[in-house]
């Protein structure tokens, strides 16, 4: 399968990349790992006339700790997140999420920025980014701006990144004290994409009650969303099995659950509840509850 013909550019600086984007506008697409874009180009669902490969732009990959944040360059691969010692020690759940994406070859090429910018409705990172309260740094001709995760995912494969901008960094807070986080997904047997995936981060107060719960759901609808019903159901409660069960019942509320080849609305709503329960149970355990 050959994609439609295109011109290929591999700019050596972010400025050059932005200039190319500005010049070719709608006719151009950025290329990161190519593990979402190239399949779409081969099916001719995407036919950019210009492909702007970010592989030579310096400073876009790598993970560093910046205060209480992990700053992850957009071109950092899933494997780098999976195997990073900083991520493993400061935010192990993120390395676990990365390790569940696709397969080893996909993880060698696919990037954090590509996944967050592409916003596939079944992608794994989006749920985790919502639960962990990440923020995205975009760069355009006028400079940088930061977008909070709750303002990022706009709809089916639509995000807050401007057409003339590049997502350059994803910033994820390390877990606060007495906080546990977990991600659980039901993977599609062939692609490993999430049929449904739920990420949970739970903070316990001194008495073992939940002072904050943050839950992201992916796979079920057109975009990853925050499960506000579950969060409200957890806050202030001692999260024993019964409380978790009750809170998880709200996992599909407010999610625009879509029927597709993977399952009916009823089935996917059910998976939301089941995986919310599993993610919460593990998060509470890791928080020391």
């Amino acid at each position: 399968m050959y994609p439609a013909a295109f011109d290929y550019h591999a700019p050596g600086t972010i400025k050059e990349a932005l200039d190319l984007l500005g010049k070719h506008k709608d006719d151009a697409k950025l290329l990161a790992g190519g593990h979402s874009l190239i399949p779409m180009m081969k099916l001719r669902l995407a036919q950019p006339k210009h492909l702007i490969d970010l592989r030579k732009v310096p400073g876009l990959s790598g993970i560093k700790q910046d205060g209480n944040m992990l700053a992850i360059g957009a071109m950092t691969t899933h494997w780098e997140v999976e195997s990073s010692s900083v991520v493993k020690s400061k935010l192990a759940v993120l390395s676990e999420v990365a390790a569940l994406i696709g397969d080893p070859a996909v993880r060698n090429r696919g990037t954090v920025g590509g996944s967050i910018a592409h916003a596939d409705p079944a992608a794994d990172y989006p749920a985790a980014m919502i639960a962990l309260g990440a923020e995205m740094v975009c760069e355009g001709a006028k400079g940088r701006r930061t977008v909070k995760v709750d303002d990022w995912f706009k709809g089916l494969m639509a995000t807050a990144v401007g057409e003339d901008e590049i997502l350059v960094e994803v910033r994820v807070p390390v877990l606060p004290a007495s906080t546990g986080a977990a991600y659980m997904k039901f993977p599609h047997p062939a692609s490993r994409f999430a049929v449904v995936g739920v990420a949970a981060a739970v903070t316990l107060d001194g008495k073992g009650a939940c002072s904050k719960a943050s839950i992201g759901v992916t796979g079920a609808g057109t975009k990853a969303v925050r499960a506000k019903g579950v969060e409200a159901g957890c806050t202030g409660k001692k999260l024993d099995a019964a409380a978790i069960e009750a809170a998880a019942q709200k996992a599909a509320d407010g999610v625009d659950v879509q029927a597709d080849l993977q399952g009916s609305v009823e089935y996917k709503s059910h998976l939301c509840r089941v995986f919310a329960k599993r993610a919460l149970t593990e998060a509470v355990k890791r928080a020391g509850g």
Partner: protein
Amino acid sequence: MKLPVKMTINGQSYSHEVEPRLLLVHYIRETVGLTGTHVGCDTSQCGACTILMNGQAVKACNFFAVQADGANIMTIEGLAKDGELHPIQQGFWEKHGLQCGFCTPGMIMSAYQMLERYPKPSEELIRHQLEGNLCRCTGYHNIVKAIEWAAEHMPAKK
């Protein structure tokens, strides 16, 4: 628009002018003429086209040749040395790790990366690491055994 690309494949250097949309797998098979790398699904699912690029497993059907400009590539043809099979190839021989053999080059290249990263893999790890490689014949059991055999017979790292 054709672009020049230069890369090293199995220690030999190659330069060509290619269309940007030429996939790396077709470059390797048709332009360079190394047909050991297979095309199974052409949709980045099956792993038959797996090669190593700068030491990392890549599905060459989901990658443009122009992206590999300057890269160091190894394909299945690069494994045997002086007529001696590589331990992973030998493992597939010893443990009957193939039937039709179509998936085998990709399985072996994935196994190569696996044993670099995890020299003593458990059975569970092998199965998890092979998630991107599909086999329609063997049921995977003997492939797992072949990789276990190879792990035991790999020369010690210096």
